[in-house]
């Protein structure tokens, strides 16, 4: 079964969504990520959605819930590289992803995560 690769970068995990997101894949990502956060004792998660050009309410909710789960496991989540059309869609769907950090690209997301983590510890 296809899955989204999760890369470990120091204390952070990077999940880059490079394929069309469907519900099954989103659920798998949720499973894998929570698993890896615990196993690698990660302090932060970066989800790169720069290639995602269509979202529905399910995927939107999924991203929000992944962030929620990560927070419970003591890791911050940053969603990076959202496209304008996706941002507009999410807002129109009434899913402004409150409580999820966002950044323009992976580099800025990394910097943000580092700030957050040092702030907390």
């Amino acid at each position, binding site marked *: 079964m296809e899955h989204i690769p999760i890369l470990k970068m120091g204390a952070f995990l990077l999940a880059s969504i490079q394929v069309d997101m469907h519900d099954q894949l989103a659920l798998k990502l949720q499973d894998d990520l929570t698993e890896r956060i615990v196993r690698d004792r990660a302090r932060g998660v970066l989800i790169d959605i720069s290639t995602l050009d269509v979202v529905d309410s399910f995927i939107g909710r999924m991203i929000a819930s992944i962030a929620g789960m990560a927070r419970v496991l003591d890791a911050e989540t940053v*969603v*990076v590289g959202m496209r*304008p059309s*996706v941002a*507009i869609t*999410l807002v129109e769907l009434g899913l*402004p992803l409150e409580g999820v950090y*966002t950044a323009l*690209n992976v580099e*800025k997301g990394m910097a943000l995560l580092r700030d957050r983590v040092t702030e907390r510890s």
Partner: protein
Amino acid sequence: MKTQRSSSRIPVVLKQAEKDILADWVKRQLESSTLRTDLLKEAELRKESAAFLAAFRNATQNGALEDMNAAEWSEVKSGLAELSRSRAQAGFTPAETATFVFSLKQPLFARLQKEFESDTEGLADDMWRATVSIDHLGLYTTEVFQQAREDIIARQQRELLELSTPVVQLWDDILALPLVGTLDSERTQVVMETLLQKIVDTGAAIAIIDITGVPTVDTLVAQHLIKTVSATRLMGADCIISGIRPQIAQTIVHLGVNLGEIPTKATLADAFAVALKRTGASLRPGSEGAR
């Protein structure tokens, strides 16, 4: 079935007396009180009249006087459409434009009267034919006129929409969006798209939305502002709303609008200062080296 009528003599009259009719027609138009000498030169009027009459004559020569949709009339119609469009742009009223065509009746009828002399039945028939055809053409000018006006309005609306949503870059990571005019759903969509695209293009970290030029903020406008701010945040940039006038502040509170966590500033200058501080840049007054 059509009732049997005497054959039309209009084509013949037009062919023989085109010059007389034209002269008479132009003279009457120049004397008429509805002529807009401020918008139209006499030479131009003369040229337009001659062109129209020539096309009208050509069309009638093929005996298609009763069937205005026939191919023979296409030249007349395209000429009229051109004329109507140029007059719409010049600022004529539809009535003035249509009068141009209708005023041909008088000289034409006078000429027909001379031609038929005592044959009243034939005269009546031909006058009816001419009336139908000229009325049709007159109404056609109005139709084109209206269409031309609508095109102008549509184009202006488009231009207004584009003009009213500039996104300017104030500093390396700082964008400003001065909003002017009322924010409705359609404009919000355009504003959002241009702002988000600009954030992608410039990699800006902070966007300042200045609402000094927004006349009123009601719950709907506030809703639109919140949406724009939320979308910006999703892209990974922060938003500051500035330019909130005292009245607007009062309305926002009276309406119970909750702007939530969105930072607001009274002036664009204040917002810019905050943005500079957040991005780590600084400006010292009077220092030349400050970029």
